[in-house]
């Protein structure tokens, strides 16, 4: 049973009292749990004939060349490819951060092209989670405030039990009152992951989340992403150029020159490396 949701909840005015979704009346996103009640397959995000070009005329650059690809719900997918292959563009277009020149992008059944800027913003806030490579956090907010930021922007309160679970799993309990400047790089990225998960989004998009981390912190973060997929049925899409990171995924999609050229299920570091070599990456 797909979780019930309001597609376009009203954006709360900054001063309106938080619109509380009363427990039981409007369960926005039932906690995805493992086992039988896990969202029954389907594609959490997909693009169809997605084309994205930058610039016009002779100077135009094709970043995505008619890509069609889907990302199953409850799976951890990695997108790989050499620099300039369009992997980040693909992710940005699927996440409503960038718009396609032609073709369609869907989050579940919602066609992103049909949404206004405001609806897109609300979609990002309520249905997606983001982890960027760097600069994930607002320097003026504490770690806790950064984690609850999307909910605060929506004027909603977070599910405290779920919040505590996420925070303790990520080992951030002691860091909640700290400002980003007082956190290590790994802690900052974990805080970003917590923010992405705390609203139980349909898809978490991670753009090189380990790019700025050392190998130990990277491994910790990736293990956590793996576990939210396994234990909670969370859908994660991650852009990376690191074969080790990609090996944590259920599946790897390879892009070259704006096209999907290969898909690899159950990747290992070696199989990913081998594929990369073959593709000339």
């Amino acid at each position, binding site marked *: 049973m797909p979780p019930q949701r309001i597609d376009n909840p009203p*954006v709360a005015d*900054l*001063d309106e*009292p*938080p619109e509380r979704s009363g427990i039981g009346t409007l369960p926005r996103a039932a906690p995805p749990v493992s086992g039988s009640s896990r969202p029954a397959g389907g594609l959490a995000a997909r693009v169809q004939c997605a084309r994205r070009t930058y610039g016009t005329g002779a100077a135009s650059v094709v970043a995505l060349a008619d890509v069609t690809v889907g990302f199953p719900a409850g799976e951890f997918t990695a997108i790989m490819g050499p620099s300039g292959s369009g992997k*980040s563009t693909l992710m*940005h277009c699927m996440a409503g*951060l*960038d718009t396609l020149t032609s073709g369609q992008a869907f989050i579940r059944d919602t066609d992103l092209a049909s949404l206004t*800027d*405001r609806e897109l*913003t*609300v979609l*990002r*806030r*309520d249905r997606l989670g*983001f982890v*960027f*490579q*760097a*600069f*994930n*956090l*607002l*320097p*003026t*907010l504490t770690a806790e*405030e950064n984690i*609850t*930021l*999307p*909910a*605060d*922007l*929506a*004027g909603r309160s977070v599910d405290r039990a779920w919040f505590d679970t996420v925070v303790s799993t990520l080992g951030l309990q002691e860091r909640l009152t700290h400002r980003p*400047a007082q956190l290590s790089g790994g802690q900052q990225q974990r805080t970003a992951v917590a*923010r992405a998960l705390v609203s139980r989004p349909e898809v978490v998009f991670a*753009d*090189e989340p380990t*790019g*700025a981390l050392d190998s130990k912190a990277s491994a910790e973060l990736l293990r956590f992403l793996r576990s939210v997929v396994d234990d909670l049925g969370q859908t994660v899409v991650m852009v990376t150029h690191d074969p080790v990171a990609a090996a944590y995924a259920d599946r790897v999609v390879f892009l070259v020159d704006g096209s999907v050229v290969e898909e690899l299920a159950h990747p290992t570091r070696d199989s990913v490396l081998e594929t990369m070599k073959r593709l000339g990456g």
Partner: protein
Amino acid sequence: MLRVSLRNVLANKLRLFLTVAAVTVGVAFVSGTFVLSDTMSRAFDQLFTGLTSGTDVVVRGQSAYTTGAATQAQPRPLDQALVADVEQVPGVAAAEGGVTGFALILDRDGLPIQPGGAPTLGASVGGDEQLAGAVGFREGRAPGGPDEVAIDAGSAEKAGYQVGDSVDIVFQDGRDTFTVVGIVGFGTTDSLAGATLAGFDLPIAQQLLGKVGVVDEIDVRADDGVTAGQLRADIAAVLPEDAEALTGLQVADEGSAAVRDGMAVFSRVLLIFAAVSVLVGSFVIWNTFSVLVAQRRREVALLRAVGASRRQVLTGIMVEAGLIGLVSAGVGLLAGVGLAVGIRSLLKLIGIEVPTTSAAIEPRTIVAALLVGVVVTMVAAFVPAWTASRLAPIEALHDAAPTAAGIGARRRIAGWLMLAAGVAGLAACATVGNEPALTGLATLTAFAGLVTAGPSLAQGMARLADHGRRGGGWRMAARNIARAPRRAAATALALTIGLTVVCAVAVTASSLKASVADSVTGGNRSDFALQPAGAGLGVSPAAADLVRGLDGVDTVEELRYTSALVQGGSRTVVGVDPAGLDQVVDLGLQDGALAAFTPGTMLLRAKAAEALGVTAGDPVTITFPETGERTVTLAGTFSQDTLLESDYLIPLADFEENVTSRLDGSVLVTIRDGASPAAVERTLTQALAEYPNVTISDPAQLTADAQASVDQMLGLITALLLLAVVVAVLGIVNTLVLSVVERTRELGLLRAVGATRSQIRTLVRRESVLMSLLGAVTGIALGTVSGIALSRALLDQGVTRLAVPTVTLTVYLVIAALVGVLAAIGPARRASRVDILRAVTTE
């Protein structure tokens, strides 16, 4: 380094514009003031030189002391026989006596042509063309007969009079009808600085102006080959002691000097407004450069790392400031010339015609503009520049966003102490009263405290606002303010300065308004006051005579004013008739007796007597400009602040003996017991129909009129100060734009994780409102406190009441919040349009 500076200046046009605008307003004020006063002085020089160009020597009564331009007191007239004596002096080609006095020309509807404050002159018109100098007949001829008049071209144009028309003129002794036979011009100018002139043949003028057998001055033309200086000496030798001879040039210089004195007062007032604008502007500059330096931290550190010395970094930023200052000074100078032209048109609009000449841009004006523009900018930029030069090269490697620190404990304590000392000083001044200098000092101290403790104030305010809802605009806005408290404080302080002055003026003016009612109605027993309409010179005593004996009228008390030295100090002395005094006003006699107030005595307000150290029975020396020293006995002292508007009373008989002009400053009227005030007012109105320059007011109207004039003055001052507030608003816009640019990534991240455009706009708007409110609250608070102290400081100047205009102050507060919203429009739009992708991708 120069190329780096130049490129930096041009890199951001909007920032350049906002920064330049902040300095330009102040520079424009300064240069505009200079251009205006120089232009007017030059024009008047030309005019006076022209007027006296044909006159070699002027003979006139000797003044007891130099009265200055403001008092307009004339020297005592000379016996007409003296004209013949002067004519006898060898070397004199022609000598002509002349008189001047009060003559109010009425237009076709019977209303005064000149309702403003400029003089309404009646004068004799001489026959000697050369003596007339630049005064010439544009049309017609010189008046000769008893009903012939020549009027100035300005008045003729205003009322549409032509040669052959009949015109009514009011004199001090009555009203008469004349035929216009000539139109007079003064060189190329139509009137003498807006004054109206009615010219008559000498004997007629003497009769009409109440100067039969006397002349005010004798204009002398020298024979060919005789120098003015020589002739002056020769003439002086034959003059009686109470007359003096001056060359035409000396008289022209005197006139110019008088105008210059008047202009100097005007200029000083304008320069005060200029100073406020400059001060506000310097805060904006300081702030802009602080932000610039913060933004370029890495760039500066990189420059240092590749080998730029501290001095080079400092010089680079100072050169940049200098360039901005130079541009601002140039634009300000041009704007100043425009402002001068604008003010001149404004003066013309209210009836003060200024002789025209090309705009005078003296080297001093250019130097002043450049100095103000460049020096203010560079001084304001120095601290930020110095801070930048202290940056260690290692900073280039740090990635952390620049977060300006708060202030150290020492500075915070010093700031709060200064603020407390200043406010305590103001409270003390308000309690003691009459301490204008200390009030100013205390205000400055408090303000210096605000500047010093400003950042901690900003942080405090941010903490207050931080209690808002999580993710809510107020809370995030408060965090952003708290992040850069120095910047927020400097931005807000620019507004604080403007509002402090505006509110201090508002409180003082409203106190003055409340006090005016007291002094107008205080001790008053009269039912009506006859006063000159508008800012006219006076009421003809003939009008008072007319009212005397009217049905229902009891006492008619004429009040005449002159300036004189009382024990050596220049004062306004009022002449009153002791007989009717007690009927029109209750003086509240403290000492002596009203019965003792006879010729040869005077009454003093107790405070004035105390200041002079005299008590009833003591001799007091009064020096009249016309007649010199007179010693009178102090008959008594009084306590009431009255509508006599003077603390120095002498009997009317003594006044007439020492002052030639018989114009009444005002006439107080009481009605008989049982008479109906309305009926008497009707009678008065009917009787005075001939005197359209006289207004009839009851005490309530007098109060209302006096209050209206306070309001008018307040409006004018507030309008000028608003320019400074506009500069402060530009500063807010500037700060917001810079902080939005600085936070592009943060704003993009906010958008990425789900902040809508309108939420971003709200965020920026609230930061703006918080800064505006910080400036407004501190400014209004300090302004109100110093306004109260200032009102108390002016206790002896007649501000006896204290009134805080809460409504006005509240309106200012609301306006400040609105200004915050308005200032944020552009920056907020810019913030809501940040490129999300640029924020979240790492290049």
